[in-house]
C-alpha cells in the first residue's frame, strides 16, 4: 500500500470576533480608504434587509430572503471583483449585488414579483438571482470558459449555499471549470442551514471546502464573518483565476441569523439561544471595532452612516412603490427576441382579459 495523493484544507481568519488582529494583516486591512467603503456596503445591506422584511410584513413585498449576518461575504468578494467580471448569485446575495451596482429598487422589484427587477441598469452582464439551487455554478463555469476562450482577463464569480453544495450541478460545474482551467471563483456561503436542514445533515464531511478536492481545484475555508479574511482570499483567488490558474472554491463559514425567508419560521426547528450566541460573531461589529482601532471610525460617522443608509433605502422604497405596474403584454414581450406569429393570438387574448384582473399590488407569503 502506498500513498498516492495528499490534501489539506486551510482556514483563514485575520480578525477575532472582537475585531482584534490575530497576527499580521494584509496591506488593505490597514487602509481605511479600502475598508470604509466595504463597511458602508455591509451597513447598507443590513439597512436594506431590515426594510425589506418590514415591507413584506406590511404586504408591500413578496417573500424575501435576508442576508442578515452574512454581509461580509458578499461585500468582501464583490469588492475584489472588477466591473468586467460577472456575478452569478443565488437569491441571498444582495450584499454582493449592491456592490456590483444593482439598485435597491431593482432588488425590491424582483422580490415584489416583477421581472423588471432583474433588468439591472448597471452590472448589465451579471446574472439575475438564481432560485434553482446550484444551477448557477454551471452558468458561471460556462461564462468563465467564454472569457478564457476570448482571452479576456475576466472572471466569473458564483455564490451558493451549504445546501447547494449537495447538488450535482455544483460538482459538475466545478469539474468542467477545473478541466478547462477556467477563471471561476465559487463562493460557498456556509450559513449552517438549508432552510431547516442543519449543516450536519447536509454532508458527512469535516469541511465543505474539501469538496474542491473532488474536482482537483484549490479549496479554502475562511471565516465568513471576517471581512478582511474574505476579501483577502477572494482577491487571491481572482488574481489566480485571471492569471490562468483555474478555479477556486471558498467556503465562507457564517451563520444565518434570520429566518430562511419571510415565509419561514426558524423557531420551529432551531434553538433561539444558539442564534443569540451567534450574534457575538456577526461581521459588522467586528469590522467596526477594527476601524475604530485604526482611528477611522467613531460614533458620529456611525450615526451619519445610519442616516444616510436610511435615506438611500427610503428613496429606493419610494422608487419601488411608485413603479408603474407591469403591463400584461410584458408576459409576451421578452419571451423571444421577436414574438412568433403563433403567439399573437394568445397575446391578444391576454390583453382582452387584462383589465378585469390587472393592477395587482406586490406582496405575498410563500417560498
Amino acid at each position: 500500500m502506498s500513498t498516492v495523493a495528499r490534501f489539506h484544507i486551510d482556514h483563514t481568519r485575520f480578525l477575532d470576533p472582537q475585531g482584534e488582529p490575530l497576527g499580521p494583516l494584509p496591506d488593505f486591512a490597514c487602509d481605511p480608504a479600502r475598508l470604509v467603503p466595504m463597511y458602508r456596503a455591509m451597513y447598507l445591506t443590513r439597512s436594506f434587509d431590515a426594510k425589506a422584511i418590514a415591507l413584506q410584513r406590511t404586504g408591500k413585498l413578496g417573500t424575501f430572503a435576508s442576508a442578515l449576518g452574512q454581509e461580509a461575504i458578499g461585500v468582501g468578494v464583490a469588492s475584489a471583483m472588477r466591473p468586467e467580471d460577472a456575478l452569478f448569485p443565488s437569491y441571498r446575495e444582495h450584499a454582493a449585488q449592491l456592490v456590483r451596482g444593482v439598485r435597491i429598487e431593482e432588488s425590491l422589484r424582483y422580490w415584489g414579483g416583477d421581472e423588471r427587477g432583474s433588468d439591472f441598469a448597471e452590472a448589465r452582464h451579471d446574472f439575475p438571482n438564481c432560485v434553482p439551487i446550484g444551477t448557477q455554478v454551471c452558468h458561471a463555469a460556462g461564462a468563465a470558459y467564454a472569457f478564457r476562450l476570448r482571452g479576456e482577463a475576466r472572471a466569473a464569480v458564483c455564490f451558493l449555499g451549504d445546501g447547494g453544495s449537495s447538488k450535482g450541478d455544483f460538482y459538475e460545474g466545478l469539474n468542467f471549470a477545473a478541466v478547462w482551467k477556467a477563471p471561476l471563483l465559487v463562493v460557498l456561503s456556509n450559513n449552517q442551514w438549508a432552510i431547516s436542514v442543519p449543516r450536519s445533515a447536509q454532508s458527512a464531511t469535516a469541511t465543505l471546502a474539501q469538496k474542491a478536492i473532488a474536482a482537483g481545484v484549490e479549496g479554502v475555508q475562511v471565516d465568513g464573518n471576517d471581512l478582511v479574511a474574505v476579501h483577502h482570499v477572494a482577491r487571491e483567488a481572482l488574481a489566480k483565476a485571471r492569471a490562468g490558474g483555474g478555479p477556486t472554491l471558498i467556503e465562507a463559514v457564517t451563520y444565518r441569523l434570520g429566518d430562511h425567508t419571510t415565509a419561514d419560521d426558524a423557531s420551529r426547528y432551531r434553538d433561539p439561544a444558539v442564534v443569540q450566541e451567534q450574534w457575538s460573531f456577526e461581521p459588522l461589529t467586528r469590522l467596526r471595532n477594527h476601524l475604530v482601532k485604526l482611528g477611522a471610525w467613531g460614533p458620529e460617522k456611525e450615526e451619519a452612516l445610519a442616516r444616510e443608509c436610511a435615506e438611500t433605502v427610503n428613496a429606493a422604497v419610494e422608487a419601488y412603490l411608485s413603479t408603474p405596474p407591469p403591463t400584461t403584454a410584458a408576459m409576451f414581450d421578452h419571451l423571444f427576441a421577436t414574438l412568433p406569429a403563433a403567439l399573437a393570438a394568445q397575446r391578444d387574448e391576454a390583453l382582452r382579459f387584462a383589465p378585469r384582473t390587472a393592477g395587482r399590488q406586490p406582496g405575498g407569503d410563500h417560498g
Partner: protein
Amino acid sequence: MAEINLVEAVNLALAHELARDEAVVLLGEDIGANGGVFRATAGLQQRFGAGRVVDTPLAETAIVGTAIGMAAMGLRPVAEIQFSGFLYPAIDHLVNHAARLRNRTRGRLACPLVVRTPCGGGIHAPEHHSESPEAMLAHTPGLRVVMPSSPARAYGLLLAAIRDPDPVMFLEPTRMYRLFRQEVADDGEALPLDVCFTLRGGTDLTLVSWGAMLHETQAAADALAAEGISAEVIDVATLKPLDLPTILESVARTGRCVIVHEAARTAGLGAEIAASLAEEGLYSLLAPVQRVTGYDTVMPLSRLEYQYLPSVERIVAAARKTLEAS
C-alpha cells in the same frame, strides 16, 4: 369528524399509511422537524422517527434516485419535491428509471414510489414556485399522474397512490392547500385511481378541469347557472391514464366541451383531451372544443400571475363561445 383543508388531508393520509405499513417511508427536504414548507408532513417525524421520515440533503436527483432504490428493495417511499419547479432535476430518474423498472425487468423488480409535489400558481410565491409540469409527466409511459382538488380526494387518492404497486406522481395544487375545509374521515378508504369524478351534472356543456383550476371552473359553472346554463363539471383527477370514457359520455350528452388548465397550452393535457374528442367524439360535438389554459409563456412573477392563470371570465367567455356556435 373534523373539517380539514387539503394540506391537512395529505398529512392525514401520510400518517395513516405510515401507521398501517412499516414499509412506508417519507423523504425530502425540510419534511422532518420543519414539517415541510407547507406543513404537509407536520408532526410525522416526531411520531414515526427520523428513519422513516427522512430529511434529505438538498438534491432532487438523488431524492428520486434513492427512492427508486428503496422502492425496488421493498420499501414504499413517498418522496417530496418541495416545489414542482424543482422536479426537473429528477426527470431523468422518473423517465428513465421509475417508469421503466418493471418493464425493463419483465416484472422482476417493481417501483412502488410516490412523488408528491406542490404545483401551480396563485399564491404569490417566488420564481419557479408556480409550475404546472403535469403534461410532461403524463406524456411519459409508465407513470401515473394524479392531482386532487379537494381535501377528501387528496386523502383518498393519496392512500391509493401509496398502495399502488407502480410509480405515481402526486401533484398537490398549492392554491388549494388552504382554500376550503371539508369533513374527511380517517377511515383508510382509498378512492379509485384512473377515473374522473363528475363534480356536478349538467346538460348544456361539459367543463373539464383538474387541480386548483376547478375552483375557477366551478365558479364559472355557477356564473353560467345564474344565466340558466347547465354545465357539467368533471374533475379529471387521474391525469394519466386518462378516463376518457367518462369525458366522452358527458360530451355525447352535452355536445360542447371547454377544457381548463393552468399549464401552458401547447401539448398540454388539454390537447390530449381535445384531440381524443376530435378522434372519438367528433360526431357528438356541436361546437368546436375550447381550451382555456395558461399561455405559452413563462409563468410570470407574482404581479402578473393572475393575468396568466385562466380566470372565471375567460372560462365563461369560452363557454359562451361554444354555446353560440352552430
